[in-house]
């Protein structure tokens, strides 16, 4: 950055193409605002006319049709639960795999790493039956545990490469000063791994937040439905037959992700790439 080279006409043309392409990304997200302030009648009469007034009742209708309040709460519980299970266990394992390398730990590391390549589809039926056996069927915990198990390999990998990049001198010095293994980890190494932890918190949250397939299998009780299940249920039950309300539903259910992205897109991009590039 900083050095602005000018390439004249090609740059202008390419930039215009790129702007058009990024409008294609944005347009479906922006268009609902065209319809959301109209009554169904106004919409049926002329969908593309500019809205004449600001009618907010569609938002309320959509909120009630999706029953979004309970859904949001459930999703929040699932996301926090997934963080609570995934991040500490990945950090601990990743630390040992990075700093206490031996033949045994390497073998165990690869055993965990294999999990990164295993699609969750592979375990759905036994997981479903297992939850029934454990009495976890149709509970949020019964969703959180398998979800986390499938997130742990990836984050163990990330923590491992992060810890491996930290110099050994620090932990050695602490050890010489008499700090035990746990103290060295909790007082010296974990704080140094904060950047990795920020990424883990954010991206595990997003993965859990976005989940659809596993939630669909594990949750039957409407009261436990997550946001994404609510949205898909809304799609099935109402579809697009009342467009202004549908538009409001789109705007509402998109909002949390958009807000998260506005504030965190730098970390989100960084974390996504960290996963893709390391090893």
């Amino acid at each position: 950055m900083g050095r602005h080279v000018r390439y004249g006409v090609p740059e202008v043309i390419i930039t215009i193409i790129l702007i058009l392409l990024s409008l294609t990304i944005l347009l479906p997200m922006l268009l609902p605002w065209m319809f959301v302030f109209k009554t169904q009648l106004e919409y049926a009469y002329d969908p593309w006319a500019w809205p004449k007034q600001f009618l907010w009742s569609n938002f309320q209708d959509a909120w009630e049709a999706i029953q979004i309040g309970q859904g949001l709460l459930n999703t929040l519980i699932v996301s926090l639960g997934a963080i609570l299970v995934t991040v500490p266990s990945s950090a601990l394992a990743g630390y040992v795999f990075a700093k206490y390398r031996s033949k045994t730990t390497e073998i165990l590391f690869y055993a965990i790493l294999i999990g990164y390549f295993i699609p969750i589809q592979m375990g759905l039926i036994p997981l479903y039956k297992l939850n029934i056996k454990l009495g976890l069927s149709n509970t949020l915990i019964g969703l959180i545990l398998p979800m986390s198990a499938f997130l742990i390999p990836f984050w163990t990998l990330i923590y491992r490469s992060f810890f491996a990049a930290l110099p050994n001198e620090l932990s050695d010095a602490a050890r010489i000063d008499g700090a035990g293994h746990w103290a060295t980890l909790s007082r010296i190494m974990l704080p140094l791994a904060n950047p990795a932890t920020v990424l883990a918190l954010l991206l595990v949250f997003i993965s859990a937040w976005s989940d659809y397939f596993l939630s669909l299998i594990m949750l039957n009780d409407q009261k436990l439905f997550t946001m994404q299940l609510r949205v898909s249920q809304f799609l099935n039950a109402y579809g697009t037959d009342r467009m202004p309300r549908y538009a409001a539903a789109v705007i509402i259910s998109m909002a949390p992700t958009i807000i998260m992205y506005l504030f965190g897109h730098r970390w989100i991009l960084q974390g996504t790439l960290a996963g893709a590039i390391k090893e």
Partner: protein
Amino acid sequence: MQAGELSAMSRQIRKKAERDRRRFIFFCILPAFLFLAVFMYYPIAETFRLSFMKSSGLGADRFIGWENYKKLFASEEFQQGLLHVFLWAFWSIIIQLPLAFFIAFSLTFYINRFTRPMRAIFYLANVLPSAITAMLGKFVFSPTNGILNSIGANAGWKWLEDIDFLGDVHIAFWSVFAVATWAYTGFPIIFLMSKIEQMPKDMKEAAEIDGVTGWKYAWYIVLPNLKGAFRILAVLCTIGSLKLFDLPYMMTTGGPGYATITLGISLYRQGFINWQYGRASAIGVVILILSLVFTVLEFAGHGGDEGGK
């Protein structure tokens, strides 16, 4: 005597240190391992077992050998699912990757005031949960009130008004695919961008001095250097298609007929609608084996292109 005691003591201390160390390692790995053992290794082993069983959740399971697999490969649903997985992977590679390269190269080559916001915008759709993406997909393609049909009606373009984007057997697949392209091209874009930015800075300058500029530079210098990256992306596309479920399920539930069915949807139908655990498990095994094959291909390609790094 004293020396012996001392060495015995130091041996003990060393032993204790070793024990502490082992205990530490054990307790650090334990949680991760426990979760994986219960919620991943066991289910996978069980899936293999079930795939050779007649199992419906009611009554005892019965061993039937390869029967499930034979039935699967003979069923139209599974054949179509497999076909769509490969079609989906093929078209993702053919359409999404070149598009991603065009955008990634342009965004790293021409730097101006639009570059930075556009980088963020191009990845935005990738972050949306699939349920929201499906919702937007229906917003655009739905037969009642969908944006495209509505534009057609408004402009008096009968041909556009009459296209049944999600209900026509020949079009539904492409509508879902278009939505996926809209949503998921963001990842290859930022991935390629980061790879391009990792290339040595003087490469561009050297090329410019040699008169290799603009798209010639992209074609002859940048592209060959991205071979490894493209191979990884191609594998990710393939594995993504093997797992594909959310978008086609929510937009068309695999229909009309089998027009948009995938292996994921087929597994769901067999397992949780027909309660054929055995047959659904067999589909799971097929998905796993195919993704492992493609993962191994990735590692093979990886090692070859970048010296094992």
